[in-house]
């Protein structure tokens, strides 16, 4: 059984999902300059949907791996 790592801020328990969602957001923001260099927005007809899918993929990987 996969156990989620707890996030505790000042004795307040925060749902693990919030931690994953925020980490994924930080990762996608850090990836942005690289995405720009590899012309990510020219590769897809709808770059916004592609970027959202990338975010969901990273979020899913984080949830499975940690």
């Amino acid at each position: 059984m996969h156990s989620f790592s707890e996030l505790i801020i000042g004795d307040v328990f925060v749902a693990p999902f919030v931690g994953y969602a925020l980490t994924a957001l930080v990762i996608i923001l850090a990836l942005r300059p690289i995405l720009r260099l590899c012309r990510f927005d020219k590769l897809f007809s709808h770059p916004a949907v592609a970027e959202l899918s990338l975010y969901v993929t990273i979020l899913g990987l984080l949830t499975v791996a940690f």
Partner: protein
Amino acid sequence: MTTAAITRPWSLAGVPASAWAFGIRIWVAIVVALAAAFWLELEVPSSAALTVAILALPTRGQALDKAVYRSIATLIGVTASVAIIAIFSQARDLLLAALAGWIGLCVYAAGLMDGTRAYAAVLSGYTVALVAIQQLDTPEHVFESGVARGAAIAIGIVAITVVNDVFAAPDSHPQLAARLAALHGRVRDYAKAAFQNAARDTAAAAGLLRDVAALHPDLTSLAGESSTGAVRGAAARSTAVALVAAVSAARALKALPPAADLAAASRELARRDGEVCDGLAALSAGTRPQRAWRTPLYRSQRIAAAAGIRAAAWLALAAVFFVLAGWPTADAALSTVAVVIGLGATTPNPNGFTVIAFVTAPIAAALAGTLEFLVLDGVNEFPLLALALAPFVIGTAVLMTRPNPSLASLGRLSLVFMIVIFAPNNPPAYDPQSFLFTSLFVGVSTALLLAAQMLVPTESNERRQRWLLASARRDFERVLSRRDRSLAPEEAMFRDATRIAQIPVGAASPRDGAVLAEALSYFDRAAAIRLARARETVS
């Protein structure tokens, strides 16, 4: 010259397709936010729908920018609520005074910023009203209430972001590029026009500077939009600064006597024109512009402080009235007063905004009443709620896209007030008494705020003009005494242009014309001195 066939955009019932698409996106986002909030069994699911209504903006960049600032502001507001309740929970009058002081401080901060940043400042203010005042009798629950509100807001933000992404909401940058290109055309026309009479020339130049400066909030909202957002933002900022510099160069050229050597001034104008073209090309290609200029904003401390003090006075007057009246649900009404003060502070005319809110309150109550008691009338199924919401949400959202600012504000406020009064909940309440109370208090709060604004009116346009001119004079003296070195000459020009944009001018009166002419003369002279000094340092 080439001519292009103008294709009329597809429209239905006189409303363009893009406006209908916007309305449908907002409706889907509200339904998704409510579904998620009901499923997660949040305490205040209506807050999630309210967040979507507030973040209802036509482009992705604007909505994302506002969402980020909304999250930060909620965090600040909830922290301030906990602090204020912890200090003053035993003394009601002191607590209300602290609230008025906090709202005043936030309105002051909003006066120093613009666009979504100003919105975030006032949001930190009225979050305290929503969280702390509504928990006046149960101070031990202020933290839970803050967390519940934060969770609902997060759901709302995620809903609108995902819906905007999936439904391909338009990006901000093509629209911004089109507006910058249109301004470029106008600047070229202005430069080409021979020197007309002085008054018409002043009005034309001031109009151009005002329109470039009005783009400032949009220039800062590009960054979050996509992976190329940051560089496009830099390109848009450089273009705007170059446009102001081009206006300045055109004015310098026109000011020369006919006998003077015009070659140097013409070269300068051509160089600025080239910089604008570079910026526009970089903006549409998503590449870094050759020159990266910042767009500093001028804000008057004095006007901001006056607005802050006035906002605190309005809230204090309303609070005194509610304390004397001793009504049972005064806390909700006071929160509404704080919300209308806050939202009004981000508009150029707070009094006008309150009048629109006053007119909207009965309309929104009628809409919410029709939705709750005529259309839904006791149903419990979520799909029916979603369907019933459609005409109301899409209708008000379409109204928001109208070019008339009063109609747009009316649409936005109708949607917000309607959700506040209807307050969708799981299970639905269908309580006529609570509907009547909420409608009544939304109406009473806006009427009371209107009365408070009559008692403590905003400063006159003449006084505002005097303050802005005095600051222009002070800044010019600083230029003369070589004490302003922090900005590049072009950036300083842009800052001066944002000051000219704030000078209130009504119908073309001779006095307003004289004020604009004086402000523009400071702008021209300061720009010429700064550019000459910059050339000195280079050579």
